[in-house]
């Protein structure tokens, strides 16, 4: 049974989702100025997924993420200030400016890394889960992957391996409808990604990814099952990204008004706020206070990132090996 959410849990969940949203909206704005290097793939719109899953995890559980990884990082406990500096290419970043948006990792909080290779994380979580199983630790590993990665051989291999070894892994498919510009209606041969679970002898469930509570419950059940030695599960979360595949994507492949309609009718933060305020669990003023605190945090992270030093020549060749 998934743990009952306390008032503190609800406030934490809201703060996490709001932090992700603010982080991503700010990157969207700042990227347009041309100051942020490289590619960024924004997670805005998908916050309920990372948050609903990671609220069921502890710091010693592991997650593997994707190229769209900022939300997973924040939800797993990576410091957003270090993340912002990383994305700005600063020496003070989470990865000293050597990884960037697509490679933010913090093993100290069980975050195995965003990943620039679609489907790269599936095999890795089989390893962290195997380690936990061999050591007799009740830890789980979650592989976040998208509808694009759902068609990668690595994910199929990992699902089979996790089932064969009966590993505590949750395959968490975030189906946002598009692999770059290709619709999952075209690229995924079955109606739901979760339908594939039965082929690997594991449970599969599809949930509404705009609803934090639905994700929290479904992921929580799968995680609890894995913790008890029940083996892997596949959870498909259907949601939407508010921005393009990468910043700069004009998204002409999407329907006119598609994102605006979702923002107005399904947005995870709106739904969450409406639910917890209408039933009296949380006051609107408390949510507003969180919004202000989060905005201040993200503002400060940008100010800091902009003024922090970039890595220098002395950093070019460090950390290739532990020893060489």
């Amino acid at each position, binding site marked *: 049974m998934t743990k009952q959410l306390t008032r503190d849990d609800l406030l934490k969940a809201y703060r996490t989702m709001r932090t992700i949203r603010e982080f991503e909206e700010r990157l969207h704005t700042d990227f347009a100025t041309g100051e942020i290097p490289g590619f960024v793939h924004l997670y805005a719109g998908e916050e309920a997924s990372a948050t609903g899953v990671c609220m069921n995890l502890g710091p010693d559980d*592991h997650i*593997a993420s994707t190229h769209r990884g900022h939300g997973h990082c924040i939800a797993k406990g990576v410091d957003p200030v270090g993340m912002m500096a990383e994305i700005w290419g600063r020496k003070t*970043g*989470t*990865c*000293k*400016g*050597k*990884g960037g948006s697509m*490679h933010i*990792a*913090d*093993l*100290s909080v069980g975050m*195995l*890394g965003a*990943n*620039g*290779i679609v489907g*790269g994380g*599936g*095999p*890795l*979580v*089989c*390893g*962290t*889960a*195997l*380690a*936990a199983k*061999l050591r007799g630790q009740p830890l789980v*590993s979650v592989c976040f992957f998208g509808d694009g990665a759902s068609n990668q*051989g*690595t994910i199929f*291999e*990992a699902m*089979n*391996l996790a089932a*064969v*070894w009966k590993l505590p892994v949750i395959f968490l498919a975030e189906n946002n409808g598009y692999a770059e510009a290709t619709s999952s209606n075209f690229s995924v041969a079955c109606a739901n990604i979760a339908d594939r679970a039965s082929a690997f002898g594991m449970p599969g469930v599809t949930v509404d990814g705009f609803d934090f509570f639905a994700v929290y419950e479904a992921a929580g059940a799968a995680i609890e099952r894995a913790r008890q030695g029940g083996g892997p599960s596949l959870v498909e979360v259907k949601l939407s990204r508010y921005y393009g595949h990468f910043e700069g994507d004009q998204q002409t492949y999407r329907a006119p008004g598609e994102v605006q309609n979702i923002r107005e009718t399904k947005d995870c933060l709106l739904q969450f706020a409406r639910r917890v305020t209408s039933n009296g669990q949380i006051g609107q003023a408390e949510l507003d206070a969180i919004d202000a605190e989060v905005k201040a945090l993200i503002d400060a992270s940008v100010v800091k990132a902009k003024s922090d030093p970039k890595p220098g020549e002395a950093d070019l060749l*460090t*950390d*290739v*090996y*532990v*020893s*060489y």
Partner: protein
Amino acid sequence: MARKITYQQAINEALDQEMSRDQNVIVMGEDVAGGAGSPGEQDAWGGVLGVTRGLYHKHPGRVIDTPISESGYVGAAVGAACCGMRPVAELMFVDFLGVCFDQIFNQAAKFRYMFGGKAETPVVIRAMYGAGFRAAAQHSQCLYNVFTHIPGLKVVVPSNPYDAKGLLIQSIRDNDPVIFLEHKALYTMEGEVPEESYTVPFGEAAVVREGHDITIVALGRMVQKAQEAAAELQKAGIHCEIIDPRTTSPLDTDTILESVEKTGRLIVVDESHPRCSMASDIAGLAAERAFASLKAPIRQITGPHAPVPFSDALEELYIPSAAKIVAAAKSLKEYR
């Protein structure tokens, strides 16, 4: 007299001793035990050529058979290494890197750098390589150069049983990802190997034979070919120095350059294809950094730019021979 065992036994012994020393060492791969889920014998094979035989019963739960899913289990080894295990994944034939390379070169090799020095990935990937078994184009390649190209990986190519044991123990204890490549024609080679545990450090070449006329740098099985050639050349009054780098990454450039500076002549013998090979790499090193010492052109003796053929008649032509080394050495000695 010291104990003699085979290259294959040396590898098995290294795995056995390290598994006994450290509970975090696990072995995984296709049929590393053999028989998982079957009605008959468990540990039926102990690896496709029996290299891991016997470990399954000695180390319960830590010799793990896998489905034929190289990306899956190599990646699992990488993931397990990220949280403190010391997995030894067997890729069986190195040629199979084509179905799992991403997990090796984009994941394992890059974690430490991409993550700002916060990751350690102490994984070992063992694989057999090399021609001579009539195994044809997809089971006979020498791909150490491919791994050597990738920063973040260490690459080990032992040429004899002593080095195989010491280098494998070093590989398992090393905190970086290591590709450990075993030439399949060397598995039956016997040599003196201490019973106790020991390590051979990375990046330290072995001077297999001393001489003052010609430096021969040879890798893996090619060390034997170089020794045959050197014995032949000795009769003709040509004294060869043979250097076995033992690891291609890190590469002991100092020992190679010092020898070239002494002899003024260099032959590199590399079983792999010629382009972007260890032969061309080492030749380039000497050309750039020991040019003034050279008395003759550098010679590269490699396999041809062609897949490894099946027919024995062709495969014998493919593999660099002692005769080719002898001919090259004589031409260099006579060069003016």
